[in-house]
Every structure is written in C-alpha cells, then in structure tokens.
C-alpha cells in the first residue's frame, strides 16, 4: 500500500525566513510525485510534478526536489501570501480501472508566514 507522510504538520515562519517542508513516501513503482497548495475553504491547486530522483522544479519562491524516498518543498524568503496548506501526493504503478490516476495524498503541512 502506498503511503505518504508530510512533516511538520504545521510551520510558522517570519517573512523572509526560508525553510523546507518534507514529504516522505513509500510507493510501488513511483510514476510521479505532485505538490499542491490549498488555501482555506478552497480546493487544492496544482504546483509541481516530479518524475524521477534528482529532478527539481521552481516557481517563484518555491522549489521542489525529489529523492528516492522523499521530496522537499523549499520556500525561499516567504511572504504572508505563501501562507497555505501544502499537500504532497504520489502516483504509483497500480492504476485504476479505465486508466485513471491512483494518487495517495499526505495530510499536508499548514504554513503560516507572519510579518
């Protein structure tokens, strides 16, 4: 069974204080790892896809990296608008009937960035 563990559960940063969020996973045949951002009262918003160990993706102050056991979401010089819950999900070898994506989600890291 695929599993995803995110840490920490919650993180409070001062504006400009860089940090990293962790996503540890066990999966049968990793096909992809995804990061999403979720604002309160809204649905998750897709951020990044990582396919193989060593891959990195960047978007503004966010950089996602991937190893064979975990992924990190690095936040450089965060701003209050980066406050959100960040979700990680893995896509394993086992698919769904009809070819659909079978994703396993972590419980998320709730990030708060203060002035």
């Amino acid at each position, binding site marked *: 069974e695929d599993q995803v563990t995110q840490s920490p559960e919650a993180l409070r940063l001062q504006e400009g204080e860089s940090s990293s969020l962790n996503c540890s996973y066990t999966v049968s045949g990793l096909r992809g790892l*995804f990061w999403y951002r979720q604002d309160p009262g809204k649905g998750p918003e897709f951020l990044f896809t990582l396919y193989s160990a060593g891959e990195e993706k960047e978007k503004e102050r966010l950089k996602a990296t991937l190893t064979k056991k975990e992924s990190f979401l690095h936040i450089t010089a965060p701003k209050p608008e980066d406050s959100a819950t960040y979700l990680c999900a893995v896509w394993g070898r086992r698919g769904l009937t009809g070819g*659909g994506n079978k994703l396993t989600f972590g419980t998320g890291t709730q990030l708060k960035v203060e002035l």
Partner: protein
Amino acid sequence: DAGITQSPRHKVTETGTPVTLRCHQTENHRYMYWYRQDPGHGLRLIHYSYGVKDTDKGEVSDGYSVSRSKTEDFLLTLESATSSQTSVYFCAISESGQGAMEYFGPGTRLTVT
C-alpha cells in the same frame, strides 16, 4: 480559473436522508473524481469516472454511489447519510488519467446531524 464548479457549496442534512452533490466541468476532461477530505487523513478517493456511464469505486466508497450521464456532470449520492459522512467533498478532473489531477473544484462542506 478552470471551469469546475460544485453545488451546493454547503449543506446540512439529517441522518438517514439522501443527499446528492454535483460536479460540473467545462474543460471536457474525460476523467472525473470524487474525494473527501477529513482532519488527519489525506484526500481519499470515493468514486471516479473514466467516461460517460463508466464509473468505479475508490478506497472509501461504502454508502456512496455516483452517476455520469454527460461528460460535464458527475453526481455523488449519499444514499442514507450518516454522521461519519460529515466531511468536505472535492471533485477533481484529469484530461488523460495520467499524472496529477489538473484541477479541483471549490469543495462542498457537508454536515450530517
């Protein structure tokens, strides 16, 4: 914003009553999914659809049924609501069924009293 809406956005209902949630998309994506989100759990798949009238169960399907008679609409029905079905429900869509869920809906907060 992606064309995916959910209705209602909030609902309070009593135990034992049937409830139907609607997901509507204007992206013409083939795959549609229903998830529930609860504290302490990641998003969990309830049911999904891989085409009109083609649906299948996810990991937490007991007590739920779905229907998809048109590409754009995917309905989730709680046949007889229970308090354990109090949750936030999200619809998601994917064009190819490969990779990430491209878009999620805004969610429906359901409370069963």
